[in-house]
C-alpha cells in the first residue's frame, strides 16, 4: 500500500494505491499538481480563477475550459439528483452569510453583521451551450461549486489512478474508491465522531463506490449572535435549519455521495431518512444534534456484520 497526503482546496487530500510497484510513487507525486490546477479553475477564493472571473460577469455568454465544463455538469447532475436542494447558484448566499473567504480566515474575522436573506434561482436557470461549452449566469447570481467540486476532483483522481492499481482518494472526507483492495477485501472507512474527530462511531466496508460526509460540526462561525454553517438551504437562502449534526452517505460516485449527504442534511432526520429509503442505491448514517444515530436500512450492507451475512 502506498499513500500521499497533502493540503489542497482548503482540506486534506489523501490517496491510497494498493500496490507495491515502485513506479507508482511517480504517479502519486504528480497528484498535488493536478489539485493546484483544479483550484486555479474551480476555486471561488482565488480572484483570478476561472470561476471567479465568470462570477464577475453574469448575464453574458462565456466559453469555459473543459475542466470547468465537466465540473459544472457534475454540479448540475447533483442538482437534479437532489431535487434541486444542492444547486450551484448559491454563490451570492454564501457571500451574504459571511463565507466570502477561505474558512480559516472566516473564523479569525468575527463578523457582527447579521445575515440577509438571498433568493436563490432554480438550478435550471443556469444557461449553457453544450456545443460550444459556453455558460451564461443569470444576472444577480454567482456560482459556488463547493462540495460538488471536491467530490468531482476525488472521482477524477480515482478514475485516473485506478488504471494502475486499486485506489482510494479522500478530499476532505469525500472518498472515492475504484476497486476492491489487491487481496479482494473491502476498504475499511471510519465515520468520524463529531465530538472526537479522531475516533470512528462506525466502520464502513466498501469494495467500490463513494462515501461523503456533510455537517455543521466543523465549518461554523459566529455572525452577530448567530452561529452559521456553510450548507445553504436554497428554499430559504440561509444555512439549513436542521436537527442533524452530520450525515455520511454512500453512493456510486463521490459527486452523488456529496449530493445525498447534503440533501439529507437539509431535509432533516425524518424527511431525509424517508428520502434515502426511496432510493435503495444510497445509504446514510445520520448523527443528530441530540446525540441520536440513525441508519438507513441499506447501511447494513456496508457494516462488518451486515457484509458478512449478506
Amino acid at each position: 500500500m502506498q499513500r500521499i497526503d497533502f493540503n489542497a482546496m482548503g482540506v486534506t487530500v489523501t490517496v491510497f494505491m494498493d500496490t507495491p510497484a515502485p513506479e507508482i510513487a511517480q504517479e502519486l507525486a504528480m497528484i498535488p499538481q493536478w489539485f493546484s490546477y483544479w483550484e486555479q479553475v474551480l476555486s471561488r477564493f482565488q480572484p483570478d480563477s476561472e470561476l471567479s472571473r465568470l462570477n464577475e460577469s453574469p448575464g453574458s455568454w462565456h466559453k469555459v475550459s473543459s475542466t470547468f465544463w465537466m465540473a459544472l455538469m457534475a454540479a448540475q447532475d447533483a442538482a437534479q439528483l437532489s431535487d434541486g436542494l444542492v444547486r450551484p447558484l448559491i454563490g451570492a448566499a454564501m457571500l451574504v452569510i459571511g463565507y466570502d473567504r477561505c474558512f480559516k480566515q472566516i473564523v479569525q474575522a468575527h463578523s457582527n453583521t447579521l445575515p440577509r436573506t438571498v433568493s436563490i434561482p432554480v438550478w435550471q436557470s443556469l444557461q449553457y451551450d453544450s456545443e460550444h461549452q459556453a455558460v451564461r449566469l443569470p444576472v444577480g447570481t454567482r456560482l459556488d461549486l463547493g462540495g460538488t467540486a471536491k467530490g468531482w476532483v476525488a472521482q477524477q483522481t480515482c478514475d485516473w489512478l485506478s488504471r494502475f492499481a486499486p485506489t482510494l482518494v479522500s478530499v476532505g472526507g469525500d472518498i472515492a474508491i475504484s476497486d476492491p483492495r489487491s487481496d479482494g477485501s473491502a476498504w475499511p472507512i471510519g465515520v468520524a465522531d463529531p465530538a472526537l474527530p479522531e475516533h470512528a462511531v462506525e466502520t464502513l466496508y466498501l469494495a467500490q463506490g463513494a462515501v461523503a460526509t456533510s455537517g455543521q460540526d466543523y465549518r461554523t462561525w459566529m455572525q452577530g449572535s448567530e452561529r452559521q454553517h456553510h450548507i445553504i438551504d436554497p428554499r430559504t437562502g440561509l444555512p439549513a435549519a436542521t436537527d442533524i449534526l452530520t450525515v455520511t452517505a454512500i453512493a456510486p460516485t463521490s459527486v452523488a455521495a456529496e449530493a445525498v449527504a447534503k440533501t439529507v442534511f437539509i431535509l432533516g432526520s425524518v424527511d431525509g431518512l424517508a428520502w434515502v429509503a426511496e432510493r435503495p442505491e444510497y445509504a446514510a448514517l445520520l448523527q443528530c444534534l441530540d446525540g441520536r444515530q440513525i441508519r438507513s436500512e441499506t447501511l447494513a450492507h456496508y457494516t462488518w456484520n451486515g457484509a458478512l451475512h449478506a
Partner: protein
Amino acid sequence: MAKKPALMKGAPGARLVLSTACLAAIITGWALLARGTSASQTVESIITIAQVVPPPAWLSEPLVLPTLQPIVSGVSSGAVAVEPVSAPAPAPIRQMRAPLPLRQIQAPPPIILTSSSR
C-alpha cells in the same frame, strides 16, 4: 427244351475262384507294401513336401509387438495425453477444530475517516 451250356452251368463256381484269388492277391500286395513302412516315414514325406514352397516373407521377419498407448489417448481424438500425476501423500489425520463463530473474526480497523470537510 434246350439245355443250357455246361459252361454256363459251371460259371458261378469259376467266379468264386476268381474272387478268392483276387482277394488273396490284394491282401498279399497290401502286406508287401505295408511291410517296412512306418508313420514317421509318412510325416517326413509330408514335411519334405511343405519345404518345397518358400514361407511368406513376413514370417521370416522378427516379431514386432505394437506399443501400448495410454488409455486416455484412445478416448478422444482431440484429447491430449497427459502424464498422470501422482497423488500427494495423504495428510496425517488430525482432530478437526470447531469453526470459529463469525463474530470472533476481527473486523479490520479503518484506514481513513470520513468527516465533514476539513
